[in-house]
């Protein structure tokens, strides 16, 4: 049974100019899959992710995560749903500045009133896994971008969510830090069977995934599945992107051999 079932969803922004950000999109994500959503700027990637992460309302269609339609929950249940079932990784990290790395990591557990000894053991476990141990007592403004994003990933993992949603997690990182973060995400996917949906427009980032879904103007465009070698998968992603068009910027990260 698929973990995420998206059925014909549409999102229309009303306003001076009515804008159809997502149009009749439907797909499914299996448990344990690492899915990348790609598309040019303005294609509706982030809107789609916001819809899945329940912080934006649907115009029509339905979303089911683990058999639950979050858009039918009331405000309180929704908060609990996000707290327990979802984990988030943002482009600009969104760490809380006045908390240390350790406190940022433990935040989702704090919100759920988990006993202190469990919190401590979970933090140590995660810190060990993400090699955050040496910086646990630093504040977000004292650590590098890569460390900040690893902290954010740790925060998204600590409560063992069913689904991790990442919005351009490498967007603010240099190539070395990007590679570390991506290898970390794919390792978590491989070793712990975590389901991850990642929005990106970096084809290198997408090449770490099992499956890439392309959207254009809010509609389904194409999808491809990974094969054994990352290099060839990367090449196939580039091929689809060149078909997809979009502007030159979106391809800037690509270096053709």
């Amino acid at each position, binding site marked *: 049974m698929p973990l995420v079932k998206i059925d014909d969803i549409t999102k229309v922004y009303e306003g001076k100019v009515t804008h159809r950000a997502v149009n009749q999109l439907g797909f499914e994500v299996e448990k344990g899959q690492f899915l990348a959503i790609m598309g040019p700027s303005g294609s509706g990637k982030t809107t789609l992710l916001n819809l899945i992460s329940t*912080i934006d309302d649907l115009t029509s269609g339905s979303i089911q995560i683990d058999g639950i339609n979050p858009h039918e929950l009331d405000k*309180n249940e929704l908060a609990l749903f*996000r707290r327990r079932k979802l984990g988030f990784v943002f482009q600009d990290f969104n760490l809380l*500045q*006045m908390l240390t790395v350790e406190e940022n990591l433990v*935040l989702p557990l*704090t919100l759920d009133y988990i006993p202190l000894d469990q919190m401590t053991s979970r933090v140590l476990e995660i810190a060990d896994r993400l090699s955050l141990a040496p910086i646990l007592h630093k504040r977000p403004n004292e650590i590098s971008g890569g460390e900040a994003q690893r902290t954010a990933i740790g925060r998204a993992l600590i409560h063992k969510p069913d689904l991790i949603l990442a919005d351009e997690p490498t967007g603010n990182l240099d190539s070395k830090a990007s590679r570390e973060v991506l290898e970390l995400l794919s390792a978590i996917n491989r070793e712990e069977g975590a389901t991850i949906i990642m929005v990106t427009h970096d084809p290198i980032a997408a090449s770490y995934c099992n499956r890439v879904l392309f959207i254009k103007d809010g509609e389904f465009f194409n999808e491809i599945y990974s094969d054994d070698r990352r290099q060839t998968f990367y090449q196939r992603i580039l091929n689809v992107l060149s078909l997809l068009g979009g502007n030159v910027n979106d391809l800037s990260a690509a270096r053709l051999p």
Partner: protein
Amino acid sequence: MTFRQLAYRNVLRNFRSYAAFFLASVVSVMVFFVYSMFIFHPLFEEEGLGTLAVRGMLIAEVVLYIFTLFFLFYSMSAFLQARSKEFGVLVHLGMTKKQLSKMIFFEMMILGSISTAAGIAFGFTFSKFFFMIGREIMELESLPLYLSWQPFVLTIGAFASLFIIISFISVGFIRTKRVLNLLQGYWKADEMGRNSIILSVSGIGFLAVAYTLAAFVDDDSVYTMAFIIPPLATIGTYLFFTHSIQALLNLLKKKKTFFWDKTRLVSIADSSVKLKDSAQMFFIVTIVSTIAFLTVGTLASFTSYTGDFRESNPLSLIYISFEENPQEDEHINLLKNQLEQKGLAYGVAQLTVKRQTSAASGNEVDILQASQFNRLAAMLGHEVVDPDSGEGIFIPYSQESLAALNETVTDTVLSESDVPLFIDDAYPHIMFPNHTLNANSIIVNDQDFEAIDEPLTGYTGEQSSFTYYAFDVPDWTATLGIGNSLSDRMAEAFETGNFDEIAFYFENPGEDYRWFKSSFALMLFIGVMVALVFLLAAGSFIYFKLYTGLERDRKQYALLVRLGMTEKELLKIVNRQLVPQFFLPWTIALLHSCFAFISLQVVWDEFAELSILGEMAAVLAGFTLVQLLYFYLIRWRYIAHLQAS
């Protein structure tokens, strides 16, 4: 980390952003506590100046409470708004609205308890000092420190209720529904929006009308205007900050030779955004500062009344004996004995005053005899008079009346006794307070005085004359307590309205003076402390705005440096941005106060005939100095922060 620790760390690690807010709350608690210490002082249970102090401080406490409620509410909602991104992240991570409210409630309680505790601690530490000031002002023998639970309970109760009210209200203002909006944060709305021309013009219009009305107010209209001008000025100020300033800046921006000139482009454009963004804050700062200026200014102007007191009360003790006063000699001896007991040198002049009607005006006049008058004049060190027969000299009761009487020439007849008088002179000194003699009082030659033998129409011979005892004591403020029994009987008669029992009038100006002086000083003391809290609050609003904008400013300055702006030019821009934020509300508040004082002067003129210009200038200059210091302090910190990046 437990949930409570989360709230605790939020406050402690954000302390720099709370600093000014915290300072203002602590001072507010402190002042409130000091007042409570006065109010519950066991010495003040008796009558007298203590009652005035207790009443004044009670009113001040109520004002303080209401103001602090408003201040905390405004600051808290601004704080929470500035933290919306943080709340967005928390809600995104799955914090429920209930948990968010709980967190904010905890935070408020932490802030509240720290500031209440600190305020009480400071208040108690310094209460000895404040008691010393209070003792000096009220001229009490001693005002010992005491320990009682009442001031503590009152202060803690008042501020606990205050912080609880505020936390409940401010929690209600956060919308958790739109997580997306929260995440986008506080600074997203930089768009300028359209500026209404009508509102811009009417803002300036309202202010102009209010100022004109205030400047041309007169005795008749002053009380009506007191209800018209303040609302007009308030609306005008609001529109001025929200619309008029933008319109003025837009005019400047249209003039490209001016606008596109070196650093001006950046500083005007940026000021324009900041002024728009903080329009409401500026409005509030202006109104709060104006109220503080006016409070202190008005109270300080009372002290100029005491400065004027000796001029209009040159006599040190006054005893007037009316008809059939059996105790006349007894009372005069009593006063003389008491003066001697105190070891005070004194002189006394006895004047017989006859009441007549002047045929020229039909008014009643008081007639004094030249020889008796000269004795008093010599005693006070003034020149003697020597009117010819048929000639009279006016006695002025104030400087204004002296000027008017100098211009007056009267040819009249005292109608009852048929004594003709020609009066073209006025005595150049004020000797008698205006309520002790008739406004029309005339000195005449001794023969003419003898010739007045008919009583005032409708009165007996005894009723139409009285004896005025004028005492001169060189050390006139030392007469405290002299004639106490007489003063008490006077006060009793005034209270009951029954004057049949007393056939005399007694006044001890030295004592009155001390009383006026202490009570005005006391009110000034109370008012200054309240004004201090007001100004600190206004300062904390500005500090807070700067602080929340700091991150954004830092980014902008980094960008400007990258674009090739020199350090010097940067400092220039910083200055141009800070100066309006500090001094625009200040200038408007000063303007408001100046015009308010013009109106106030009219009121003063009406019953005290004195100028409050000097006091006003001193008060406004003092406040401006404080504001300048505050500006340099904040600018120093602000530039240090900007350069740190």
